[in-house]
């Protein structure tokens, strides 16, 4: 965090929009020279398909030293388990799990050579909690958690940290589910902090893992979910007369900061 930030380089996949764009913007604000990769076109976005090993390697070779890699690119294909198309299943794993392996190998090369670097994998609360009809998505994110630990274990002795950030319910423009106002409100009410997360909630945590403030943190998954992953019991119906989760009345509107 206190380093001279003149030429530190961060690579972010899936950076054209949503959470990835917010991460790229935050790291740029932190002083990183940010390389934005995506298969979607966008301002300042370099085309990169994370499933294409040769293309990923070529981009890595064209860049100088990389200090931070954020594996954010991911897709999902909804289907009931009995109807999941095996090709969809493979494609999701290809992008969400094999993709991060390829980028970690390619952009990790200069990290290994210099003995420093921080890799941040964007996972999901889906890695922890089953989610109906998400096909391979949750499995891919649970796999990425394991890959995070594998990277931390194998590359830790060579100076590279690897952690994961697990977003909870995040209201991105592309998340169609939150276009329904009723669903949006009901979901926000299920979160202990009583709001949906924003892309910047996630990017702020990525910034922490990219900085030296997390110098001794490796192999961890930090869920950014407003407490949702602790909330199973509050989502179940309770018998009348048993004190519910609303012991503390909600107070004034919650801002984006805790220091009001």
């Amino acid at each position, binding site marked *: 965090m206190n380093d001279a930030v003149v030429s530190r380089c961060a690579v972010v996949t899936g950076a054209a929009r949503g959470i990835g764009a917010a991460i790229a913007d935050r790291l740029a604000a932190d002083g990183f020279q940010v390389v934005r990769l995506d298969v979607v076109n966008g301002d300042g976005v370099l085309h990169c398909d994370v499933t294409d090993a040769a293309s990923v390697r070529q981009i890595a070779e064209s860049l100088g030293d990389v200090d931070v890699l954020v594996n954010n690119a991911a897709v999902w294909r909804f289907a009931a388990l009995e109807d999941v198309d095996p090709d969809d299943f493979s494609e999701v794993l290809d992008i969400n799990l094999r993709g991060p392996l390829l980028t970690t190998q390619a952009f990790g090369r200069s990290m290994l050579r210099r003995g420093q670097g921080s890799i941040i994998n964007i996972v999901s609360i889906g890695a922890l909690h089953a989610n109906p009809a998400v096909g391979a998505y949750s499995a891919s994110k649970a796999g990425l958690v394991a890959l995070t630990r594998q990277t931390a274990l194998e590359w830790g002795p060579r100076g590279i940290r690897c952690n994961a950030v697990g977003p909870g319910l995040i209201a991105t423009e592309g998340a169609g589910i939150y276009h329904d106002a009723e669903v949006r409100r009901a979901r926000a009410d299920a979160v*202990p902090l009583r709001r949906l997360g924003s892309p910047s909630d996630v990017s702020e945590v990525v910034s922490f893992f990219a900085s030296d403030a*997390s*110098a001794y943190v490796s192999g961890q998954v*930090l869920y950014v979910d*407003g*407490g949702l992953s602790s909330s199973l019991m509050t989502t179940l119906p309770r018998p009348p007369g048993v004190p519910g989760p609303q012991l503390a009345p909600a107070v004034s509107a919650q*801002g984006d*900061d805790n220091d009001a």
Partner: protein
Amino acid sequence: MKRALVTGAARGIGKAIATRLGAEGWTVALLDISRSDAEAAAAGIDGAVGLGADISDEASVEAALDAFGGPLDLVVNNAGIVRFGPLLDLAAEDFAVVTRVNLVGTFTMARAAARRMRDANVHGSIVNITSMNGVAPGPNGGAYGATKAGIALLTQQMAIEWGPCGIRVNAIAPGLILAGMSDPIYADPEIREARESKVPLGRLGTADDIASLVVFLASADASYITGQNILVDGGVTMSMIANLPRPKSVDTVGTT
């Protein structure tokens, strides 16, 4: 100026956390079972005060919070004790005392602070210090690991009950740290070296590594994080299988 209270702050990790918060511009109260020790530690920090209290005693905690006064934005429940002994022979009293300080004490202080935050409509945060031993039990650790696992669960429960008030509650689980109650372990250079070699990042942690995460969790950057227990351990807790002997045919794979 934002106001923080750190328990077990007379020495070790607690003192480092208080010192770091002071350097970041917080007004800090250092609380310890010994008031004179707390005051001595506070003397080195600009604008800080030292307080004496038994965190497991509600009246004692209330008196200390009254003495600090004003709104409270952050409480770090760091105070904790350990009494070693094999479970087969452990005195019941040792188990009870460790539980009372670590688990009951954390609850008592956190609740007193949260009530004040709620009443003043302060969207504050609470950070509970747990341990890697709350995830991976240490042999002959007595009640220590169980209390730390208990604090981790309590952290989640506080998060779901107090989230609607705007209060965030998280935990930090230190790994092998060269400070505080672990200091005596690392006085032996052989043990120190053997343990360092088992940490993927190749070193023991420092008290400042813990303080850095406290500062982050208390900041606006962590405003959507609550109910989490984060290991600051250089990767050691997830390394069990790597520590097992492997057949010669594979034991050089992946080493440099």
